[in-house]
Structures are given as structure tokens and as C-alpha cells.
């Protein structure tokens, strides 16, 4: 049995938002999009640098489950999520989310699947290629999601058993 206390704060943000001046929603969103466009080259370079790190990490993976190694690759992949959209390659964000899910599942299950990890790394490279056809990207993402799904249900069952 626990007791609770409620407080009703009045955040200043509501008053500030309503102050005279400011921007119309449409203009603000346009400006933000234009700002993001201005960092596209830097973002692309940083995303490619992360991809190279990931490829190097993948190349050094040994057979058998190695939690620290998978965690290292996860730490690289997760940093790339969100950049794909800015770089004009939104499929990369989807692929990296699938990759992070897969790595999380493998770590939960204490398993290793070189092919499943490898296909995600290769997909990341292909989706970063300039001029990659959209139809091909969609097929590739479908494939990645299937690979991820192979472990998802099992990991969910393992997590609920552990809870």
C-alpha cells in the first residue's frame, strides 16, 4: 500500500508560447527543415564514419556469443538513428532500428548469428549509396525486418519469463 501526493504546477512555458511575436507554425517548420538541410553534408560524413566503424567491428567478430562485442556494435548503430532522415536516406533509420532490435534480441537470448548481423551492416552500406533505387530499398528493409522478427518473439518470451 503506497501513498501519493499530487501537485499542480503551472509551467511558465505556456505563457511564453503565447507571448506576442514569434512565428507561425508553417514558417517555423519550414525554417527548421531548411536548417536541417544545411547540415546534410556534415551529417552524411558522420553517418559514413559510423558505418566504417561498424564494418570494422563486424569484421573482428569471432564465432560464438560475445556480449561485449555486440554491445559495441549496438553503441555504434544506435548513434546513427535519426541521421538517415537528415541525410536524405530515411531507409537507413529503419534499417538501423531493425539492427538495434536484432542486437538487443541476440544479447537477451545470448546468441550469435553472423549472417543476421552481417546482412544489416551490408544493408546500411547499400542504403547509403547515392542513387539507390527506392524499390530496392523497400525490398531490402522487408528482408531485414524478417531477419529481426526471427528472434523477436523468442526474446519477448525470454524477457517475460525473466520478469
Amino acid at each position, binding site marked *: *500500500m*503506497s*501513498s*501519493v*501526493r*499530487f*501537485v*499542480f*504546477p*503551472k*509551467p*511558465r*512555458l*505556456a505563457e*511564453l*508560447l*503565447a*507571448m*506576442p*511575436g*514569434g*512565428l*507561425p*507554425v*508553417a514558417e*517555423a*517548420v*519550414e525554417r*527548421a*527543415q*531548411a*536548417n*536541417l538541410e*544545411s*547540415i546534410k553534408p*556534415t*551529417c552524411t560524413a*558522420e*553517418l559514413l564514419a559510423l558505418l566504417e566503424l561498424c564494418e570494422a567491428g563486424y569484421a573482428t567478430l569471432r564465432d560464438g556469443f560475445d556480449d561485449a562485442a555486440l*554491445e559495441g556494435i*549496438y553503441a555504434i548503430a*544506435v*548513434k546513427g*538513428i*535519426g*541521421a*538517415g532522415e*537528415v541525410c536524405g536516406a530515411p531507409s537507413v*533509420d529503419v534499417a*538501423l*532500428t531493425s539492427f*538495434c*532490435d536484432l542486437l*538487443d*534480441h541476440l*544479447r*537477451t537470448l545470448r546468441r550469435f548469428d553472423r549472417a543476421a548481423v552481417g546482412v544489416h551492416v551490408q544493408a546500411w552500406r547499400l542504403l547509403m549509396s547515392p542513387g539507390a533505387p527506392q524499390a530496392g530499398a523497400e525490398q531490402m528493409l522487408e528482408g531485414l525486418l524478417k531477419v529481426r522478427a526471427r528472434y523477436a518473439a523468442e*526474446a*519477448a518470451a525470454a*524477457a517475460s519469463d525473466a520478469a
Partner: protein
Amino acid sequence: MALDASSRARFNLEKASILLLDDTPMGMSILVQIVTGLGAKQLHRCTSIEMAQEVAQTHEIDLAVVDALAPSGQGYDFVQWLRRETQEPNCYAPVLITTAHTPTGDIVRARDAGGHFIIKKPLAPIVLLERIIWVARASRPFLFSGTYVGPDRRFRDDGPPDGVGRRREDLAKAEAEAKAQAEREAEPQAEAPPERSTG
């Protein structure tokens, strides 16, 4: 309700003091470009928990956009610290948590951190703006319990599950209702209010 990206409605973020926490240059850069585009001018850019704590202790914060900082998830710890350890008004500051990916083991941690919203990356300017406006206007009550401090996470109050109370207040309410019911049942029929005469 979704915010219309072509709306001419105005809002003003110029005077809002905004704490941004993201430990990657790319993540911080994306966030800064979005919030400056939305008109924010007073930004506290923090690339570590320590910097964010320093800012939260020395400046009044109107809004915090905090990355979960995967894989460590230290962003959640920062939000929990903000709720429990800082003075008013910062302990009540609206907090939007951004996350690239939430590992299964961090889902409960994310839920219990005390943020107003969790936003999945990639961040879209319209979504961030929609959440900022919502969080400012909704003014959700804050809940202090043994294990959770933060905005009330319930968007609907259906009462305790299956009518079974979990909290001291629920029990007291149930006891009072039971007592009142017992008293009503014990009342003699003669004490029922007389019927009004229509004559």
C-alpha cells in the same frame, strides 16, 4: 490532435530557456537546428549528464529535451534526478525524452523516468513542435509516490483496476463507501423521507 504543418497559428519560443542534452555531435546538431528553426534562442547545450546537472542547478529551465543516451540510458537517470533533486520550478519542467532505440531492458526505466513524452528518432520538426505545445498547454499534475516522481502518466482516470484499490487513499475511500452503505441498510424503513403531498 496532430498539429497542422501549414497552420498560420503563432507561437513564441524566443524567451524560453531550453536545456538540450545529447552526447553525440550529430544528435546535438540535429536538435539545435530544429529548435532554432522553431524560434528558440536561449539554449543550454549539454553533452554530458554533469553539464546538464550544472545547468539545471544554476538556470531556470522552461523546457528540457533530453536524449536517453543509449546504450547507457543515462538520460533517464538525469530526468529522474531532475524530478527528485532540483528545486522548483525546475523539478516540474516539461521534459521531452528523445530516443534512438530503447532496449527491452530499458522500457520500464524509460516509463518511470518522469518525462512528459518519449519521442522516437528520427526527429521531425512538426512532431517536436506538436509535443512542445501539447506539454505546455496540458499542464499535467505531478505525482509523488515512493517509486515515481513526475507528470501523471494516466491520460484517462478509470479508477483502480477491477475496483481494487492499491493506495491508502483508495482503501480509505472504499472503507468510507462501505460504511455509508452499511448505515443505509441499517436505517429503519420508517425513517425514509415522507412522500410529498400532491393534494
